[in-house]
């Protein structure tokens, strides 16, 4: 079911640190089932943008709108702390580069997946258990390891567990911050493949930050190129990659093709 109203709208969003620019004047719309990638070098402001969009850092100026599950579009700045946190643990997901930050490392894999269900009010142990087993299977983690701590998991497994933990409440919007960063190339490829199929299966809307244009190409429909905190170019991913307008984007694209 498509909807004409965007799910997320960024309207001239800026974040300043004193006089230093984190990101400035970023605007874009995100529709249901759409994946937008934000690319750029480190320090380009893409992570700042992500943390502003997800509400963990307040914007200095500009507004962010989100269409809630009830169909009403709300200015995120007007949400109370309780509403924001509820959104964060039900309708949104956040996949962090370091899985240890996104997981609760002191409890089992099953509890990690179950926590968001519990947070959403589930009080049946068996249901939590079976959902956790189901999701471990979906992200190709041996369900026999449900009671093990993620401490014993490899980097790729932890990342897949983090994705399962986020998706178990069927969020509509997922933020991803370099989800494949720091993983071996072969592990990366497999993880990307899984992310792509999950995104399709649940028609997720995703904002993904990456420095890796190959990741952006594989996952995203549209692309935003950032430099010095400013969105210098945006468009359909294929278009931007095939015919980059800005010299900086051309440089990025050529360096990708050489590798």
């Amino acid at each position, binding site marked *: 079911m498509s909807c004409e109203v965007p799910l997320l709208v960024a309207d001239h969003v800026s974040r300043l640190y004193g006089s230093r620019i984190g990101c400035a004047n970023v605007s874009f719309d995100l529709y249901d089932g759409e994946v937008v990638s934000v690319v750029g070098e480190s320090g380009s402001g893409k992570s700042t943008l992500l943390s502003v969009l997800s509400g963990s850092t307040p914007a200095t100026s500009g507004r962010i709108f989100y269409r809630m599950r009830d169909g009403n579009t709300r200015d995120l700045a007007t949400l109370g*702390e*309780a509403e924001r*946190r509820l959104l964060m*643990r039900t309708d949104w997901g956040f996949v962090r580069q370091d899985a240890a930050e996104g997981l*609760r490392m002191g*409890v*089992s894999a*099953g*509890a990690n997946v*179950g*926590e968001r269900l*519990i*947070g959403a009010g589930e*009080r*049946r*142990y*068996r249901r*939590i*258990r079976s959902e956790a087993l189901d999701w471990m299977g979906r992200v190709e983690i041996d369900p026999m390891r*449900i*009671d093990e701590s993620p401490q014993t998991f490899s980097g790729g497994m932890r990342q897949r567990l983090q994705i399962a933990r986020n998706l178990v409440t069927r969020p509509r919007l997922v933020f991803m911050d370099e989800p494949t960063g720091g993983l071996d190339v072969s592990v990366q490829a497999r993880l990307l493949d899984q992310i792509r199929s999950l995104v399709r299966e649940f028609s997720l809307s995703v904002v993904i930050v990456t420095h890796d244009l190959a990741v952006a190409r594989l996952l995203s429909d549209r692309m935003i190129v950032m430099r010095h905190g400013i969105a210098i170019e945006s468009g359909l991913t294929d278009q931007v990659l095939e015919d980059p307008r800005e010299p900086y984007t051309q440089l990025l694209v050529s360096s990708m093709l050489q590798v």
Partner: protein
Amino acid sequence: MSAPIATGYNFAYLDEQTKRMIRRAILKAIAIPGYQVPFASREMPMPYGWGTGGVQVTAAILGPDDILKVIDQGSDDTTNAVSIRRFFQKTAGVATTTHTSKATIIQTRHRIPEDAVKEGQTIVFQVPIPEPLRFLEPRETETRTMHALQEYGLMHVKLYEDIARHGHIATTYAYPVRVNGRYLMDPSPTPKFDNPKMDMSPALQLFGAGREKRIYAIPPYTSVVSLDFEDHPFERGAPDRPCALCGSTGVFLDEVVTDDKGARMFVCSDTDFCERALMRRTAPEEIA
């Protein structure tokens, strides 16, 4: 039987200003069942961790006509119970009793008496760590937010872990409860066996944590629900045998090692209850 009142100190040790401050905290606690009210806890002449919170609450509500019972681990005769009872005999000169039914105020550490309490009675609990989320989240700033937003999922994560590992919930005392459908509360380190006694109790239940500077309360006839899962309901864990002394069943038992070869017996933790049950059995007509 009360000893002469110590000179040089106010009635029940604390000055009236301090008592007023504590009473205000108690009133607020009663108005918001299960909510931990910060209060300016005073240094008391007994160490922190030995009941200073309970002692301050008792001192603030105690009147000359009150009859006080003090128990520790269910017993009136353990060292700390004796010490606290004497403290109030000395500083307030109030009457004391070991009989649950005769007391107007019962200060307790780790137990609720076996005899049913009634309207008009107050139970004062000594609390070491008032924050039920403390061992899951060490920061006060964060736990206060979690209470404010009723974000109590973490507690169920812990129970989930228990069941996943052991097949059942493995929390045996200080078992977390939800009070009046709102605040998550630590019932103090009483065994979970006593949790059901807190629910809809006709007595006022006050909790004092001196070192952590918190007071909280369960007003009479307030719902107190032990956390659980629908398919793994709370279990009280009643002992599977009668008391070896008085023969009572369905009461909490202490295990006593009787020789160096591992022989042991199980007897009532509530010594006053045990004694009277024994008397009732041997000389029933003497009991009113």
